[in-house]
């Protein structure tokens, strides 16, 4: 029973040191199928060293600290070895061995995830894709890129920009996150509104299954209706169905004209009106619609190095509206028409239009830097929720009401164009009292509105146990069946994603 308790407790949120998570109900403990894993032996290490280069088998505690700590410094693994393969064949050999030996593995990309999905929960072996960082091909006629999973997103962006294309996704973590990790988590980001989901833009995937089988679907065909579309299984599976080792992406043309407006808006109803009007006026050139509340701006100006308020006035909400296209005059005309209408209508009380790329970056820094500012401000409880637009901000206000009296700052921001709220609660230090008021209440609130408890961040180690708040029991059962088929020994990223793992 004690070992079952330990296994089960691994799936709980292990917040900051000294914070005890919620207690699991007994029924949940008994439904846990605790996987039985083996510990690493010297023979295993010798095997790894026979497959990989000497310095790609990392065992020294100093180096392991990075592999064992997530970006938020919230989740800490106890892995004693990190492996850094340089080829798909090496990944295959490692996984085959680990599967035979029942040694659990946590695949790791840029380690920038926000739900504890990329570090070990216990002492799983870390398998980092950082050694597979080559862009293999950029086809400037077809508009496709093929690369290894460990290519950093920004590096991929630079490679395709040189040929006149852009990667169809962009996020604040672009300097560190890997395209393989983006694909494995079905990352959303700032341009989801314009380019859509990775489920649509990924053309092919090469992945390695738990038993070492290499599934090579790495082609760049736009249309291929031959059998079940296996790549969709890997996209968003967060490393639990296979390890993505190669990605082929469709690339949109790099827009030659990009313009950014930053608007002060007088109410949430106005935010929705501005969004609706933006779609009407700007139509096909609209490429990003983001929002943040004044509390988020406040926190960011206080804690983010180099942040500067673009406006002198303050307002309850701010929006970033970006347009991109192939004709600057045409886009500027549409944008000016839209801005004039919004100022006349009174929804927009102030705003600015970025005059050059430096100002554009300055404005994006505000929106992209909120996460970093929150990390610096103290402890943060982070939620990523999809909700119907009219009710989206109600969650922020209800959270404020609920935490009234606590030393907590509640901020709301996110991809309003996608109906995706980032709700964050900042406290000076970790607080059980605050945490217990938030969870599971915030997920129950979301379930009631038929929202998603994780719009884009995924489940990781944090939210698997709440999956039934957004998916039916039948769906979860089918997911578990799929997992058993693809990873019978459960060695791939255990304790994550599905409840009871």
């Amino acid at each position, binding site marked *: 029973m004690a070992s079952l308790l330990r296994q089960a407790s691994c799936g709980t949120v292990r917040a900051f040191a000294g914070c005890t998570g919620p207690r699991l109900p007994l029924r949940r403990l008994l439904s846990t199928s605790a996987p039985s894993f083996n510990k690493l032996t010297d023979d295993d290490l010798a095997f790894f060293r026979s497959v990989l280069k000497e310095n790609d088998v990392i065992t020294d505690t100093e180096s392991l600290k990075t592999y064992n700590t997530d970006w938020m410094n919230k989740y800490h693994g106890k892995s004693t070895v990190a492996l850094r393969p340089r080829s798909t064949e090496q990944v295959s050999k490692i996984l085959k061995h680990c599967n035979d030996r029942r040694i659990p593995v946590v695949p790791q990309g840029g380690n920038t995830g926000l739900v504890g999905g990329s570090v070990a929960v216990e002492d799983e072996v870390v398998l980092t894709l950082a050694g597979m960082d080559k862009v293999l091909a950029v086809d400037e006629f077809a508009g496709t890129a093929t690369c290894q999973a460990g290519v950093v997103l920004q590096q991929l962006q630079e490679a395709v920009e040189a040929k006149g294309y852009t990667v169809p996704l962009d996020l604040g973590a672009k300097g560190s996150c890997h395209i393989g990790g983006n694909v494995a988590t079905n990352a959303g980001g700032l341009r989801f509104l314009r380019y859509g989901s990775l489920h649509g833009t990924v053309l092919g995937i090469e992945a390695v299954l738990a038993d070492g089988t290499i599934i090579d679907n790495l082609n760049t065909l736009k249309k291929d209706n031959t059998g079940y579309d296996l790549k969709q299984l890997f996209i968003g599976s967060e490393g639990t169905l296979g390890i993505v080792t190669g990605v082929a992406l469709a690339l949109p043309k790099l827009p030659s004209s990009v313009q950014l407006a930053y608007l002060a808006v007088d109410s949430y109803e106005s935010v929705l009106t501005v969004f609706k009007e933006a779609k009407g006026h700007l139509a096909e050139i609209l490429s990003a619609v983001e929002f943040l509340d004044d509390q988020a701006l406040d926190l960011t100006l206080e804690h983010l190095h180099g942040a500067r308020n673009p406006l002198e006035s303050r307002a309850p909400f701010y929006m970033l509206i970006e347009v991109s296209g192939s004709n600057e005059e045409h886009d500027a005309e549409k944008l000016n028409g839209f801005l004039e209408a919004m100022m006349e209508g009174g929804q927009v009380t102030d705003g*600015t239009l970025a005059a*050059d790329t430096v100002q554009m970056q300055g404005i994006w820094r505000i929106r992209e830097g909120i996460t970093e500012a929150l990390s610096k401000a103290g402890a943060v409880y982070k939620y990523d929720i999809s909700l119907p637009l009219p009710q989206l901000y109600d969650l922020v206000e209800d959270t404020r009401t609920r935490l009234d009296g606590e030393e907590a700052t509640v901020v709301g921001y996110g991809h309003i164009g996608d109906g995706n709220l980032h709700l964050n609660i900042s406290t000076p230090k970790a607080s059980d009292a605050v945490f217990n008021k938030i969870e599971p209440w915030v997920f129950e609130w979301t379930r009631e509105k038929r929202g998603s408890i994780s719009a884009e961040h995924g489940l990781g180690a944090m939210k698997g146990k709440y999956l039934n708040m957004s998916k039916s029991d039948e769906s979860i059962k089918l997911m578990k069946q799929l997992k058993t088929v693809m990873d019978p020994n459960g060695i791939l990223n255990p304790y994550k994603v599905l409840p009871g793992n």
Partner: protein
Amino acid sequence: FHSLSTRGSIIDMSGLRILVGVKRVIDYGVKVRVKPDKSGVVMDNVKMSINPFCEIAVEEAVRLKEAGVASEVLAVSIGPAKALDTIRHALAMGADRGIHIEHDSLGLAPLQVAKLFKAVCDKETPDMVILGKQAIDGDFNQTGQMLSALTGWPQATFASEVKVADGAAEVTREVDGGLETVGVKLPAVITTDLRLNEPRYATLPNIMKAKKKKVEKTTPADLGVDVAPRVEVIKVEEPPTRKAGITVGSVDELMDKLVNEAKVL
């Protein structure tokens, strides 16, 4: 408000008229590419914006107006039709009116630009001219100095701080050895350096208002300036690509490379 240098007595300082030069250049963030025929750089479909040093000049002038030291800021640009956008941006930041000297500015070198500004100064008689120290396309860093010579006005270049009082300006300059402070009697030419100020974002209400501010159009011929080029660009090339660096394994290996490969020892 006459030129202060022609009077000896104490002048009313609340009415300084400042002329600011603004240039439309390839945006700072763009990766510039050389045309295949090596005649110049690719300008088609490339993002253009106000030269960063000119933006700083506008900001400084507007701040002087807000401090009650200046009463009018005049933005001047030389360029094709689209240069008007740059003037409008200066107006949105707070300049009062503009002058657009229409010319396909690609052929213009600093001397011609300085002559055109001299002609405008003769007409407008400003108390101060603030220019960016250089444009990020040509990087010449000559126009301000040449204008000073043509007008006979003192110059204070690479300004990182400007204080105006009693018909003179005290300007702190960024020079190789550190900071140097000079005093110049007005009228004078000041060129801006990066640390002078951080330009404001133009607000939407001001962008709308700027559309109604007056911009006068003129040409080099109207100003009586000969802008025939004195310099012919023969070829434009990219700098040679840097070779990748290598990590050496030992001091001996480093010495070997320094002596035998790089031949610097």
